[in-house]
C-alpha cells in the first residue's frame, strides 16, 4: 500500500509541477502592469472532498473577479493560485511552501479538512504569511496552534455541534448513536456532540469511528440498528456522506430512526439527490435561498449564476469571504505586510460579504457568523435544480457557542 501511495503521489506531483511551470509563465506577463496581489489557495481538488474543493475554487474565483472588476486592490490586480493538496497534510504543507517561495504569494486562503489545514498553518507561520483558513477545526483558532496571522473564517466543530446537538436533542430525540470519521474534525465533533447530548439530558447508546474516505459502511450498521436509537448522528464528511446515507437507507434505518448530521453540504445534496437527503437534518453556514432576505447574498448568488450557472455552495462561500477579507485587510492597512493586515482586520473586525454581519473575535481571530439548521426537502418539494433544503431555524452568531478566549488558551 505504501509504495502505491508513494507512486500515486509522485505521479501527481509530476503533473502538479507541470501545471505550476505553465502557470508560472503567464503571471510574468502580467507583472508588466504592476505587481499583482497574489493569494495562494491549497485545496483537496482530488479525493473524497473534491466536490467541495471545486465549490471553493469557484468561490475564490468569484471574489477575484469581483475585486478586479473594481480595479483591483489599491490598484493591484488580484490573482488567486490554486493547488491540489490531495487531502494529505504533507502535500498541503509542500504546496503551501511552493506557493509562498516559488510563486511569491503574499497570503494563503483555503484548506479543507482539519488535519490538512493544520499542516498549511505550520507552513504559513514559518513563512510569516497571513492564512485565512476556510475549513472547520477547533485547534486552528486555539493555542498552541494559532498565531496572530492565523484567521479562521469557517465554523468549527464546537460551534456546529453545540448548536446542532442541542437542536437535535430538543427536536428529534434524546437517544443517539454517533458514527464519525476517525480524524481531527470527526473526533472533535464526536466529543462536542457527546458532551452536548449529556448536558441536555440525553443518552449516548454508542459511538463508532470509521476511516475517512470509506465507501463501505454496512458492517457498522447492524449494531446500530439493534441499539434502536432515536437519532443516528453521522459525522461523515464529503463523498462518505452519500455512501453512508445510501447504505443506511438500504438497511431501512431511515424508517427506524431520525437522521441528523452536524453539517449538510449543498454539493452533496445535489449529487445524492432529494430522495437520499429527504428529512436529513444538519446545519449550513450559507444557503443560496438566503438571497430572498439578505441583500449581499443576492449579489453573491447573481455573480455565481452569471459565471458558473449555479449558485455558490456553503464552502465556496467561505473561500469567497476569505479572499474578500484579505482584500479588505490590505486596503485598511494600506500594506501587504501580513502582520499589518492582521492588525487592521482586528481593529475593524466587522464585515458583511455575503450573508449578513460577521466579525473577527480579537483574541483568537475566529469569525463569528449566523448559521442555519436545515432539512433535506425530499422529492417533489425541491425548487429548481438547487433548491434542495428547507431552512428550519436561523441561529444568530454568538460568541457563547465557541469556547471562551480563556478556554482556548488566551489569558
Amino acid at each position, binding site marked *: *500500500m505504501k509504495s*502505491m*501511495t508513494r*507512486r*500515486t503521489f509522485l*505521479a501527481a506531483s509530476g*503533473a502538479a509541477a507541470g501545471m505550476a511551470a505553465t502557470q508560472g509563465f503567464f503571471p510574468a506577463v502580467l507583472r508588466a502592469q504592476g505587481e499583482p496581489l497574489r493569494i495562494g489557495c491549497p485545496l483537496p*481538488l*482530488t*479525493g*473524497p472532498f*473534491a*466536490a467541495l474543493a*471545486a465549490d471553493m475554487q469557484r468561490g475564490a474565483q468569484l471574489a477575484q473577479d469581483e475585486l478586479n472588476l473594481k480595479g483591483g486592490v489599491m490598484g493591484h490586480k488580484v490573482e488567486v493560485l490554486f493547488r491540489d493538496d490531495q487531502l494529505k497534510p504533507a502535500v498541503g504543507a509542500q504546496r503551501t511552501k511552493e506557493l509562498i517561495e516559488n510563486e511569491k504569494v503574499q497570503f494563503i486562503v483555503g484548506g479543507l479538512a482539519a488535519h490538512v489545514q493544520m499542516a498549511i498553518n505550520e507552513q504559513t507561520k514559518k513563512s510569516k504569511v497571513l492564512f485565512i483558513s476556510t475549513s472547520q477545526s477547533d485547534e486552528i483558532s486555539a493555542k498552541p496552534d494559532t498565531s496572530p496571522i492565523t484567521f479562521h473564517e469557517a465554523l468549527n466543530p464546537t460551534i456546529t455541534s453545540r448548536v446542532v446537538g442541542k437542536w437535535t436533542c430538543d427536536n428529534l430525540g434524546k437517544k443517539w448513536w454517533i458514527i464519525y470519521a*476517525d480524524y481531527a474534525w470527526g473526533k472533535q465533533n464526536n466529543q462536542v456532540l457527546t458532551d452536548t447530548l449529556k448536558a441536555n439530558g440525553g443518552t449516548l447508546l454508542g459511538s*463508532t*469511528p*470509521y*476511516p475517512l474516505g470509506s*465507501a*463501505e459502511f*454496512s*458492517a*457498522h*450498521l*447492524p*449494531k446500530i*440498528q*439493534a441499539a434502536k436509537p432515536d437519532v443516528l448522528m453521522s459525522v461523515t464528511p464529503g*463523498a462518505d456522506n*452519500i*455512501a453512508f446515507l*445510501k*447504505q443506511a437507507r*438500504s*438497511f*431501512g434505518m431511515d424508517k427506524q430512526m431520525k437522521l441528523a448530521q452536524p453539517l449538510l453540504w449543498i454539493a452533496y445534496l445535489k*449529487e*445524492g439527490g432529494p430522495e437520499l437527503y429527504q428529512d436529513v437534518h444538519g446545519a449550513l453556514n450559507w444557503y443560496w435561498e438566503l438571497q430572498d432576505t439578505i441583500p449581499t447574498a443576492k449579489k453573491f448568488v447573481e455573480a455565481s449564476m452569471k459565471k458558473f450557472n449555479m449558485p455558490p455552495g456553503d464552502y465556496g462561500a467561505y473561500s469567497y469571504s476569505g479572499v474578500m477579507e484579505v482584500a479588505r485587510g490590505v486596503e485598511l492597512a494600506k500594506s501587504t505586510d501580513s502582520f499589518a493586515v492582521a492588525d487592521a482586520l482586528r481593529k475593524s473586525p466587522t464585515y458583511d460579504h455575503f450573508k449578513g454581519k460577521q466579525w473577527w473575535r480579537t483574541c483568537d481571530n475566529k469569525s463569528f457568523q449566523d448559521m442555519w439548521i436545515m432539512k433535506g426537502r425530499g422529492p417533489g418539494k425541491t425548487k429548481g435544480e438547487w433548491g434542495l433544503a428547507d431552512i428550519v431555524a436561523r441561529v444568530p452568531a454568538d460568541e457563547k457557542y465557541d469556547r471562551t478566549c480563556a478556554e482556548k488558551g488566551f489569558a
Partner: protein
Amino acid sequence: MDVAAILPQIFTGLVLGMIFVLLAIGLSLIFGLMTVVNFAHGSLYMLGAYFTVFFLAYTKSFWVALVVAPILVGVVGLAVERLLIRRLYGRGPDDPLLLTFGLSLVLIETAKLIWGKIGLTLDPPRALAGAVDLGFMAFPAYRLFVIAVTILVLVGLWAFVTRTDVGLIIRAGSRDPLMVRALGVDLNRIWLLVFGIGCGLAGLAGALAGPMRGAYADMGVTMVIESFVVVVVGGMGSLLGAVVAGIMMGQVVGLTTFFAPKLAEIMVFVVMAVVLLVRPSGIFGEEGLAE
C-alpha cells in the same frame, strides 16, 4: 454478546466477502496459469463500476449494464494481454508486475480525465431497492442479489474449469505448461482467454459494488491490496483458496468492525501474517508455486 446481534453481522460480512472473492479469484486464476501478478486488477474493478454507470445512463437498464460492463472490462483485459503483457512472457514475474502497476496508474488518471475527479453515484434498480425482512434483520435486497450473482458465477466458473475441455487445458497449463505445449496446445490463446476472464470478473465485482459504494477513480486502490491479501491467504493460484479466503476476510472485516471498529483495516493484515506463519504457502497453496 448474544447471537442475535452477531447473525446480522455475519450476513453483512458475507457481502463484503463476495466482492473479495470475485476479485481474488480473477487474480488467482491469472497468477496460477500465467504467474502474472496483475496489479491493474483494482483499476479494472473501478472500470467495471464506471462502465456500469455509463451503460445505465445510455440504455436505462441496470440489467443490460450489469452484463455489458463486465464483458467490456474483459475485452479491455484481452487487449492488455495481447498488446502489452504478451511481450513480457519469459522475462520473470517482475516485469509484468511493473507493467500492470504502471497501467493501473494510467487507468486511474484516465478515469479522472474522462469522468472527473469527483465520484459518481448510482442506484440499484427499482426492483432491488429497499430492504427485505429476513426475520432476524432487515437486509438490503440489492446485497442479497450480490450474494446470489456471485454464487451463480462461481458455480459457472467451477463447471467451466472442471467440466469443459478448455477448463482441462487451463488446469493442465497451470501444472506444466511445457508438457501442454508439447502436446500441441496453443497456450497463448488460453492465456489470452484466462486473462480476459480474470479481468471480466474484476469488472463484475466493480459493477456489483457500484450501486453500493458509488464509482470513483481511486476505488480500486485499497481493494487490490486487500484482494492480494485474500489471494495470499488462500494460496497463490488456488481457486478454492480464493473463495474460502475471500469469504473469511469478509467475516474478519465484518466482525472486527463489530467488536473493535478502529482495528477493522489492520485486522486483515494480521490474519494474513498469522496464516503465513502457520502455512507459508496459504491455506490451499501448493508449495513452491509462489516462488
